[in-house]
């Protein structure tokens, strides 16, 4: 298997989900978002979570990150139970999370500033990261002067600059048009192939999932379980040529087949 040839980054961490379930009780309403998910994310892999909207993908990321605690089961990172956000993890959100009163430079350096990193080092690391995400020349711009895609680049740079061992991304390209989305996906692939940290990436876009991932986790509709783990055996570095690989089309057809029965009944299952 080609996935076995991927060199495992020594610094990245493995994540294990041990039968995690999540039930929300809000206003007398009970929502079982996640029934039970057990899975292991090997270190240094790009894992994508795909599933119908509302099935609990964002919740799953929150649980891995420790922003929320599961109602059943637990998450471990290299064997250690997760109890809250760790400094070696970082999250990119779906919505615009740039700080609109700060410049691009100060946005990217924000996490370092909070962590008490010296100003000169902040500057150096932020500049390198701005270059990596292709925002050179925009250091002094404010978010309102940037397009949606550029704002997400800022958010990605702000996460990457922390050199996280695990990067969590919740539909980071969800609000972008398709071309921008595909191009940013390509750049994320290029960056990831250099850094090789562990990534848990949420999307509902089948092509995006295949182009980015080593492994795709397919979730069922709510209350969700992990339906299938699909290994994407496509060569790296993955360029746009991956589109013309016959296996790409096969994977896409496979994912469609897995997701179709989930999609059309989603609206029926609400809460009980």
């Amino acid at each position, binding site marked *: 298997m080609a996935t076995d040839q991927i060199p495992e980054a020594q610094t990245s961490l493995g994540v294990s989900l041990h039968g995690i379930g999540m039930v929300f009780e809000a206003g007398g309403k009970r929502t079982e978002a996640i029934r039970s998910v057990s899975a292991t994310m090997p270190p240094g892999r790009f894992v994508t979570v795909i599933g119908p909207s509302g099935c609990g993908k964002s919740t799953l990321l929150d649980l891995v990150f420790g922003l929320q605690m599961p109602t059943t089961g637990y998450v471990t990172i290299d064997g250690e139970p997760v109890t809250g956000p760790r400094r070696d993890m970082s999250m990119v959100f779906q919505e615009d999370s740039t*700080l609109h*009163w700060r410049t691009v430079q100060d946005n990217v350096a924000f996490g370092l500033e*909070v962590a008490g990193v010296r100003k000169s080092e902040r500057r150096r690391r932020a500049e390198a990261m701005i270059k990596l995400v292709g925002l050179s020349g925009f250091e002094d711009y404010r978010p309102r002067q940037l397009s949606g895609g550029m704002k997400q680049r800022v958010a990605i740079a702000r996460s990457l600059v922390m050199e996280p061992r695990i990067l969590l991304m919740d539909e980071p390209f969800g609000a972008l048009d398709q071309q921008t989305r595909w191009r940013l996906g390509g750049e994320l692939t290029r960056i990831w192939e250099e850094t090789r940290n562990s990534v848990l990436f949420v999307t509902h876009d089948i092509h995006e999932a295949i182009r980015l991932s080593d492994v795709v986790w397919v979730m069922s509709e709510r209350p969700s379980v992990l339906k299938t783990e699909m290994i994407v055996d496509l060569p790296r570095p993955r360029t746009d040529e991956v589109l013309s690989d016959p296996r790409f089309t096969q994977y896409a057809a496979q994912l469609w087949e897995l997701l179709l029965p989930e999609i059309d009944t989603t609206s029926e299952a609400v809460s009980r």
Partner: protein
Amino acid sequence: MTSKAPPAKTQVPTAPPSSFTEVHIPRARSRRPRPGTKAYRVAVHGTQLTLLAALFGLIELAARTGHVSKFVLPAPSEIARKLPHVVASSQFGGDLRQSAIELGLACIIALPIGVIVGLALGRWSLAGRVLEPFLSTLYAVPLLVFYPILLVMMGLGWTPIVVISAAAAFVPVSMNTLTGAKTLSPTFRKLARSLNCNRRQTYLKILLPAMVPLLVPGIQIGLIVALVYTIAMEFLVAVQGLGFRISYSYTLFQMVATWAGIVIVVIISIVLSTAITATGRRVRQDLD
């Protein structure tokens, strides 16, 4: 007329016989200046100044011809002549300082407390739900009615003035802060947690700057309310201050001095509120 040369009006292209009627709109005919141009601004301000001048002229006329009693409204020219004397008088400096101290104290008390209470109510949603109706009701209460009680408790002087002005300014500041806290995108809090921000960093570096667009108008209203209450309270309980001087002159039937005091207070209010608005706009431009 029908068979010979066509009349001039048929030269004008007529509407085609379809439902999409072409309407001929005459363009660039109007000599009225357009909004945004310099001519427009000149027209606006010119008209405003003319209106003011006309108003003063009318009053002047009415006062001089005796249509309005001198004990109600002296001629503006007389008030204008009196103004320098009032400003130069020995009391004026003390009055101005007294009012400034009261206003300043009220703001120093009301602004931080208003912001902190607003943030706290936004943070603990139950407390917010319980207390918000009280706050918004307080908005409608003329707090001036409490002055006799404060007078009994604190005596004649600046304390009751500061207390009531601060309380009045506190209401809009805390309400706007609460609204800001509630309407803030939850992403900001998530970001703070995800970057392991401590509480200080969360508020000072993320939540407060993000709320500036709502904080600034609240503070603006708070400052103006404090000014109004300071002057009003000085009418009632003070022994010094701009408001006191107006009511004092009036009790001595010195109508020109009374009016001079009124004009001074009006001018100071205009200057202050203009400065507050301009500062607010600048802060928002810098932070938005």
